[in-house]
């Protein structure tokens, strides 16, 4: 039992729940960052438990991906807002079956 992992789990679940509950695309993005961060915490915790640096390299890569994802996501959000004057994901449902 590793307390860091428990914390990571809790952070992750808070992020997940927030993602579903929030009705603002920006806020949902923040929740995604929260989840990624929780995963990073788990990686670092495992890295220490295993005595291996690879876990930290993973974290590094995750951060780069998160940066790219945030940039593209925010750009999409700007386009969405420009087109529809809304940030509510429920209003962007033209792709429904």
């Amino acid at each position, binding site marked *: *039992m*590793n*307390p*860091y*992992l*428990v*914390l990571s789990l*809790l*952070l992750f*679940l*808070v*992020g*997940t*729940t*927030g993602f*579903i*509950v*929030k009705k603002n695309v*920006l*806020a949902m*993005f*923040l*929740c995604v*960052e929260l989840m990624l*961060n929780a995963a*990073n*915490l788990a990686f*670092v*915790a495992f890295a*220490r*438990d*295993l*005595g*291996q*640096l*690879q876990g*930290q*390299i993973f*974290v*590094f*890569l995750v*951060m*780069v*991906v*998160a940066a*790219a994802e*945030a*940039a*593209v996501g*925010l*750009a*999409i959000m*700007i386009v969405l*807002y*420009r087109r529809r*004057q*809304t940030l*509510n994901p429920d*209003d962007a*449902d033209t792709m429904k079956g």
Partner: protein
Amino acid sequence: METLIFYLFGGIALLAAVSVVAQKNVFYSALSLILCLGSVAVLFLALEAPFIAAVQVIVYAGAIMVLFLFVIMILDPFSAAAARDKRKRLTCLAAALGLVALVVMFTLMRAYDPAALPVVAGGIPADAASVSRLGQLLFTRFLVPFEATSILILVAIMGVVVLARKRS
């Protein structure tokens, strides 16, 4: 000492995370997330990952979150149309599912025993040496993924430019 740091900053991180979700105002949510990320950075330090902690502060809390705040201010979500919820039950569902995941995950975690893991001797050197080791790994064994991330960033930049450009 480490236990104290863990409980202090872990608690702050958790509270900040809950605040991210609970805040009605996105601006406050973002500020709470910065707090949360900062606390986790301290935990990284405690976990003998000083480089990651530094990157967390510089890149994450610094760059990415500032980007978020910029967008929040550009888009002015406070004046956006009143949020309407097409799936009211989703909130309850999310809570229930989260609870299930929590319980199950917790039971699984109880079985996790770090002492049983095969620890590689000398895997993580102390403090400053660990940063140089990390750098060596990053530029030798993990060179290809590392370079791939730079391409990813480049593509993301181009994508953002294309997306955000105003069409005349």
